């Protein structure tokens, strides 16, 4: 009998303690943060000035960063973030050169493998002392490889317009 009573009391006490601890020691997590992070490219390129997309999303959620922070995301991501945060922003101020792609100048690539190690999406292929190349479908145009290249063989160029990607221009307003 004593055992039953003491164990029940212990259970209730510990349960209450856990409940209280969960309430007061909870780690603050903003659901907005996760939603914002889902909108960002997730390539952790660091062009926004934050370590990665998670940190950028946190700053956005706290209101410390502007929705225009993500260069690879361009206008589309800016628009999505602004809509999520309920902010109206002037999109004409956002520079959007359209999606960019990295290209390797094959004649000056030395095959040093430095670029392929930093590519966040594994878009660069090539072995040591072989010319490297970039898989267009996987490149996000973040530019992380540019500064690692010792011979400046990598450059960014706008994604070429192809037939299925061509869009009718908007009619000029009279």
């Amino acid at each position, binding site marked *: 009998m004593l055992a039953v009573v003491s164990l029940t009391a212990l259970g209730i006490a510990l349960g209450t303690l856990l409940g209280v601890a969960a309430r007061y020691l909870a780690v603050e997590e903003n659901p907005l943060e996760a939603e914002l992070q889902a909108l960002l*490219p*997730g*390539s*952790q390129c660091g062009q926004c000035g934050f370590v990665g997309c998670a940190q950028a999303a946190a700053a956005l959620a706290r209101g410390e960063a502007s929705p225009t922070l993500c260069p690879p*995301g*361009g206008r*589309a*991501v800016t628009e999505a973030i602004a809509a999520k945060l309920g902010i109206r922003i002037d*999109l004409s101020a956002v520079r959007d050169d359209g*999606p960019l792609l990295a290209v390797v100048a094959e004649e000056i690539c030395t095959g040093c493998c430095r670029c392929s190690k930093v*590519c*966040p*999406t*594994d*878009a660069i292929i090539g072995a040591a002392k072989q010319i490297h190349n970039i898989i267009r*479908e*996987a490149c*996000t145009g973040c530019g992380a490889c540019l500064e690692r290249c010792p011979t400046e063989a990598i450059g960014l160029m706008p994604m070429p*317009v*192809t*037939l299925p*990607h*061509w*869009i*009718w*221009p*908007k*009619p000029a*307003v*009279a």
Partner: protein
Amino acid sequence: MGLIERLFREPRWGVHPDDHKRPAADAPLRVLPRPARVHLPLQQHVGGAARPVVLVGQKVLKGQLLAQSQGNISAPIHAPVSGTVTAIGEVTAPHPSGLGLAAITVEADGADRWIETDPVADPFALAPEEIARRTAAAGVVGLGGATFPAAVKFALGRRLSVRTLIVNGGECEPYLSSDDRIMRDCPAQVVDGARIIMHAIGAESALVGIEDNKPEAIAAMTRAAATYPEVKIRPVPARYPMGSDKQLIETLTGKEVPADARAAEVGVLVHNVSTCAAVHRAIRLGQPLVERIVTVNGGAVTRPGNVLAPLGCLVDDLLACCGVKEKPARLLFGGPMMGTLLPHGRVPLVKGASGVLAFTAAETAVPATGPCIRCGSCTRACPMGLLPLEMAAHIRAGDLDGAVGYSLSDCISCGCCAYVCPSHIPLVQYFSHAKGELAARERARLRTEAGRRLAEARLARLERDAKEKAELAARRQAERAAARARAGAAKPAEQTT
């Protein structure tokens, strides 16, 4: 037709432009003199581009496979002349952008020697799957302009057990008469093709919808179908866009195809009359799709009419055949309402081009755009029951999502709204722009998602590598320690001995 009946039958949607079909429709069919070379784009259809199977310098026969289909929705390309493959590279696409498109160029040798064909005497003894396979191998696609691979539609029709085949002889676009010509000149081929398709999809009846402005075609088709009670010829009122599948289905069967649904889901399947004739040739004669009838018309053409031309010939060849009065100010593939603007005359004829229209500057002049006066003419004309004025206003202000809210995705780009607009607002261009922009946004989203997956996979890989390295290092260390311990144990033993 009585007044009451007319009031009852006349659809409430659409427009009735001057059809300009005659005298081109009444001129007998001409055959294009064989061009010196033909250029065959690898992408002449909806779906994946075909993959070349010939090499530069290779001799090919007429009807020989040049490029095979790739993926589930695709179509092969065959040689329309016998000769030598001289290039596989880019040519100007029949597209307003004037961008390049991969194509195979064949230099004609003048012999026009056919490859050995495999004709079928009795297609109705074949399994439906075999008919679909042969149709796919012959590269037959929807010749009304949609260029959807015909065999893929057969499979869809079988899967959704379609009961009725609708044969589209509407040809509602002004100026065009290639379908009219094929129904007048080879009605037996069209009817036979329709019966073969019925067999392939398991349909019980075929309704051939022909606009009542083509009495000769209706008469010829009625004669050809007289012995086949399952093929019914149904004249429909001439009203643009009657040749659009959703409008034709509604007029013939009274069924409305829901938004985001395919015609097969209401139990019907639509094939163009020219597609039926192409299926007939593919099965009965074993001939792949290498030529088509194309209407050459417009104010700049001296002798407008229909021409049987090999695919891949240049628009300039077709215009030279029919004569040009003055330098055309605008060239189009297809009709004036929905046709494709061409950058110049050096683009190849593709499977989906039912007409080449050459207009003079006077014909193409459009008055300056004015402001929208909200008269609602476009709303009355829209065959899909949309509000073009609202959609255009939202797109003009950059609010694409607002336009989507007005069912932009249901717009069939028929151009009725822009045709009736008293302010000459280029409504369809707004919609095309918005559709392209939305598609680009969707592509960007998919790309971002793919990038994120790749980045996550890379992080996981790096983590795993680091863990494996650490494990390996730990194991090595342990081995070394063990070896040292063994050596340590052995040494004292040595010393003692």
